[in-house]
């Protein structure tokens, strides 16, 4: 049996971590917006944000390629600022993973936000808190279980991304595949021991994270 190359798992963990930081911050903002009942066209915005859940990953990857490729305005702008394109880079892998996991994060965080009793918000307001303080000191702390669940779902989704990553970032990022691409490569090369080891490591990583996230969520719910 050949020694296992853990580089792809390490790369996937890096991509998933950065993707989760991005989706949690952006997703929390979007969830707050969607939880606001007076938002115009709320259902339409929700449907657009949730679209990656129902699109085939390759279709999502294609859209990202069109929107962020070297010929697009965004792609050219990125290249002008950072000196390299988005496509076929580490940044591209993070964006692809984030695009797929964002709706999961938004949905979980929104559920957490909407579970906060309206009377608590009313109480905070009558105690002199402006909207930003109400969000920071009442809404987000009480929605923490939803934020944690969202972060974990988003991380797990990003860790396993395949189709969109391959479309936007290619099969090698800085010379290494991500864990999912590595599994497919090794399967095609008939290296079953490598496939098994990477699959098991990815599963253990994901399940361990979800376990600790569940524990933390229960602790927060108990207060």
């Amino acid at each position, binding site marked *: 049996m050949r020694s296992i190359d853990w580089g792809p798992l390490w790369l996937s963990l890096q991509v998933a971590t950065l993707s989760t930081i991005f989706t949690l911050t952006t997703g929390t903002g979007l969830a707050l917006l969607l939880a606001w009942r007076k938002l115009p066209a709320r259902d339409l915005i929700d449907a657009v944000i949730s679209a990656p859940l129902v699109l085939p990953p390759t279709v999502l990857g294609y859209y990202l390629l069109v929107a962020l490729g070297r010929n697009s305005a965004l792609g050219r702008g990125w290249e002008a600022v950072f000196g390299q394109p988005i496509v076929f880079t580490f940044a591209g892998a993070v964006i692809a993973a984030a695009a797929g996991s964002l709706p999961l994060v938004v949905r979980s965080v929104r559920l957490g936000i909407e579970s906060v*009793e309206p*009377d*608590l918000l*009313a*109480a*905070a*307001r*009558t*105690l*002199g*808190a*402006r909207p930003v*303080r109400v969000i920071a*000191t*009442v809404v987000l*702390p*009480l929605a923490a279980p939803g934020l944690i669940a969202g972060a974990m779902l988003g991380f797990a989704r990003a860790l396993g991304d395949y189709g969109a990553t391959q479309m936007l970032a290619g099969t090698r990022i800085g010379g290494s595949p991500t864990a999912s691409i590595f599994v497919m490569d090794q399967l095609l090369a008939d290296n079953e021991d490598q496939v098994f080891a990477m699959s098991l490591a990815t599963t253990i990583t994901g399940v361990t994270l979800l376990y600790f996230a569940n524990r933390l969520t229960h602790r927060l719910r108990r*207060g």
Partner: protein
Amino acid sequence: MRRGELAIDVELECPPGITCVMGPSGAGKSSILAAIAGLAVPDAGRVALGDEVWLDRARGVDVPVHDRRLAYVLQGLALFPHLTALGNVAYGMPEIAKPARRARAQALLDRVGVGHLAGRRPRTFSGGEAQRVALARALARAPRLMLLDEPFSALDRELRAQLAALVRELVAELGVPLIHVTHSVSEARLLADQVVQIERGKVVGRGVAAEILAHFVD
């Protein structure tokens, strides 16, 4: 103002002391408090405290909730479950430096008789303790008006009497008007100086408590 299908059309004038707004469930009592606090915006009307106008729809005046200096004890109390009693009371005083804020919050908890709960969270409080913490929290902003929305409805007779006495003491100390919403005649007897009766969103009676309540049985 409209709450569901019910149109609420009332004129309230609250002299110093305790005014009880009495009426059956669904009469629009809580909606009146929400409009005074700024949590609900009526279609038309005016809310003023002395010379200070908080709402005047005709002139486009609508002071935001956070700028109306009032104490509002909501029906469910709405204590913040993630904060201790001290944290709940200190919440309304962010402009004060932390040590002074904590000291003032502790003093308020002591004043309402629950200083020993300072480090505990609301889920561990009994009904009466929660009421007292909610009162202390509402007083933290040095309010110019107090609003109580059926705060004693879940308590037994003895606790109601104790808390009513405490509220009367606090109102006398602060010298501010208090509007108390209730459907309970016995609760109104414990607290009210004046009574305003409403039914289906309209005022159907008002006057000195002793006179109005003489017509009711508990």
